[in-house]
């Protein structure tokens, strides 16, 4: 790709990017949120037309803004934003627009079998090809997207944060898959904010910043800190993770106490507590039940039964409304579907939980002030608040959701994958914010599929498997091995 430029509303998102990836290699692209990674890939895929520049594949120029042509030439993309059709089956989605037919009629069985094979390849054999895509959890959808990209037998495979929704095990399996594909001669453009995996798999790394090409380096010839410096433009002052206070000895009345919470088929007699000022990490494999647990506590799953106490007082949480009123907050793992009003501006989204009013009338000034203050706190440029969040980069969207929940001033915050799709700089910020909140006495239940951050941030770690809490360990000193063992351990026969 040479001299690629793109502007939205006459405003540059990409400024003359050059990018060359050798065949049969894994070429990582990293950069801050909004650096232009996804846009660049969208241009490569022909779904967004560049304003300037050219693309050559094996020397042949590729017509711009023609997704069909790109597909013909073997380019296939796993988008950062999901592109499944919720009402169609998994199989139908995987083969969308390249359905095999027999005398003009869809060869449905063949599609199902093929899909099952592809799903197995990406390590999601448990997904039934006949399920509606809309019924899948985030992680499951992510894997379907990958399977879909593979169905094309691509020469060039673009993966835009494919692991963002995955937990350690799936992540590992996906990386293996990438390696096998590379071995088969597939070129892979790999976008991720998880630098450790970038270093684990990439042959070369290109860094973008503010729509400009900063550097392209051999992985062997560089290290994490250099990349971070190139991305963020500064060293991360203190380490990625904030200091943990010494574990407080007295375990007083917990801010949140859940006992015997059950949801037939999903949650099985879950009990846990979160102290004031404590960050409790909740680890587990995809489908372990963490999100379900979070939603159940938050009153979003009426089918769930159990007792919940806030600051020792029994709380009858029948609905998210009740939950928020009791000072509970839930940052959903599903930004697009449950987090944001995509076509409204940041200000309105941030005020969704806490809208400053007097006698039913909105205090616009206060609303705006609140948004600006919180935007600063999550390191989001205040100007971005005036735009429909739809037009923000994934990471910046995540910051808006976070700001919304900061506005809520919750006493207990449940954060479900809060750093999904966020660049390292921003991640550090979010960890810091979590710590600040804790210091202010907020209890935090921190759900994440990224083991390093669970280990790095949590005061205490809970591990879930099959809807049950199967292990508890102090955060400091906990090891990936210990957590994984608990997460994958087979149930001992009862």
């Amino acid at each position, binding site marked *: 790709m040479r001299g690629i430029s793109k502007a939205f509303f006459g405003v540059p998102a990409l400024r003359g990017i050059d990018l060359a990836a050798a065949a049969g290699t894994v070429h990582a692209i990293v950069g801050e949120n909004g650096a232009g990674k996804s846009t660049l890939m969208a241009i490569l895929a022909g779904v967004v037309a560049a304003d300037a520049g050219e693309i050559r594949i094996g020397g042949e120029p590729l017509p711009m803004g023609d997704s069909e042509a790109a597909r013909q030439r073997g380019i296939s993309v796993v988008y950062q934003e999901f592109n499944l*059709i919720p009402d169609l089956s998994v199989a139908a989605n995987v083969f969308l627009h390249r359905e095999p037919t027999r005398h003009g009629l869809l060869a449905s069985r063949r599609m199902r079998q093929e899909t099952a094979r592809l799903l197995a390849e990406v390590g999601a054999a448990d997904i039934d090809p006949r399920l509606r895509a809309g019924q899948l959890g985030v992680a499951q959808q992510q894997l379907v997207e990958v399977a879909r990209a593979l169905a094309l037998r691509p020469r060039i495979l673009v993966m835009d944060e494919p692991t963002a929704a995955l937990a350690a095990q799936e992540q590992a399996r996906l990386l293996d898959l990438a390696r096998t594909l590379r071995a088969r001669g597939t070129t892979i453009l790999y976008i991720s904010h998880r630098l450790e995996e970038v270093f684990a798999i990439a042959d070369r790394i290109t860094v973008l910043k503010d729509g400009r090409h900063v550097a392209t380096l051999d992985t062997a010839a560089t290290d994490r800190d250099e990349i971070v410096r190139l991305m963020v433009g500064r060293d991360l002052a203190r380490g990625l993770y904030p200091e943990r206070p010494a574990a407080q000895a007295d375990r007083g009345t917990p801010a949140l106490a859940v006992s015997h919470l059950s949801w037939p088929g999903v949650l099985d007699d879950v009990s846990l507590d979160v102290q004031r000022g404590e960050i409790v990490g909740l680890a587990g494999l995809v489908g372990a039940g963490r999100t379900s647990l979070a939603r159940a506590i938050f009153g979003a799953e009426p089918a769930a039964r159990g007792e919940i106490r806030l600051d020792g007082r029994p709380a009858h949480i029948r609905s998210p409304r009740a939950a928020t009123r009791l000072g509970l907050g839930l940052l959903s793992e599903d930004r697009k579907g449950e987090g944001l009003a995509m076509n409204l501006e940041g200000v309105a989204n941030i005020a969704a939980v806490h809208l400053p009013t007097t006698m039913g009338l909105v205090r616009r000034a206060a609303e705006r002030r609140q948004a600006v203050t919180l935007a600063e706190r999550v390191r989001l440029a205040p100007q971005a608040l005036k735009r429909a969040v739809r037009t923000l980069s994934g990471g910046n969207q995540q910051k808006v959701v976070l700001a919304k929940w900061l506005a809520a001033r919750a006493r207990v915050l449940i954060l479900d994958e809060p750093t999904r799709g966020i660049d390292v700089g921003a991640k550090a910020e979010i960890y810091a914010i979590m710590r600040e909140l804790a210091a202010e006495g907020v209890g935090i239940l921190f759900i994440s599929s990224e083991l390093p951050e669970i280990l790095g941030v949590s005061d205490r770690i809970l591990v879930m498997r099959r809807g049950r809490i199967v292990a508890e360990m102090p955060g400091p000193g906990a090891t990936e091995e210990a957590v994984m063992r608990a997460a994958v351990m087979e149930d001992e026969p009862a």
Partner: protein
Amino acid sequence: MGVGERASAAGAAPAVVPGRAGAGRFGRGAGTVLADYGIWAALAIAIVVSAATAPRFLSGANIHDLMSAMAVLGIVSVGQTVVILSGGIDLSVGMLMGLVTVLTNGIMNGDAALAWPMVALGLAIGLGVGLLNGGLLVLTRIDPLILTFGMLSILTGAIFVYTDQTVGAAPANFRAIAQGSLGPFPYLFLVMVVAAAIAWLVLTRTRFGRYVYAIGGAEEHARRAGIPIAPMKVAIYAISGLTAGIAGIGLAARLGSGYTLAGQGFELDSIVAVVLGGTSLAGGRGSVIGTIGAVVFLAILSNGLNLAGISPYTQQVVKGLVVVAAVVLYTRARRA
């Protein structure tokens, strides 16, 4: 109520619903798919009640008239189903049927030799207007409801440009389309069945059909998958126009003359049929079989009320409440 319960488009699981953020076209509940069997339950009840209250309901004559009564609406509703499945809507079908009725009868004016040419003309007009709708839609990218609402007005005008009063007459051979029957089945009824069968096959067993659902489900994602949206839309509205054309021919044969406002009301009736049939106005979910079920249901409702000798005003109240009851019932049925 929980979100899981609420996530009308997403079913029970707390899952992402790409392209379905927000309440969706016609809002809250629009994504709700009326349980597929809902309409059949309603239909069964309607039949039982009618048969019980009006003994003549099951008479051969009445059933025959019923079949011919429902056919025209049934045919146009098939096309409407395709449009709505694709996330669109077509308000122009009614007046399109009217235009066909007026022109064919006006031109034939009793001349038997012109019968078949007029059938061709009817199809041509339907297809033409359909293509026009689709074309304008992709060119202007305005909301299909606005577009077809404007088209409705234009077509009405076109009718009155041609005549301001009932014109022409259908020759016997043309009328036969509406009055003749094959064994116990009126031709028009068979046309409806065939149209529905073809639509069903295309929608469920071909790529075209698959893309209709995809576009209705999440247009942007369908586009990214490389589905040619513009040609698809033109084709979809062309289909709607075509079925409206066929329905228009049926109407022309049934009325036997070119009554200017003959088509008025078919646009809403067809939409009601489609939605009662379980197709989501948000697009992406539903079936043409359900639509036919709803058409039969509506015909029986009207027929039953007439046979039972219910007064017109009460009939209107009942019809309204039945529609409400039906949707409320299904939406509950779906959650249970």
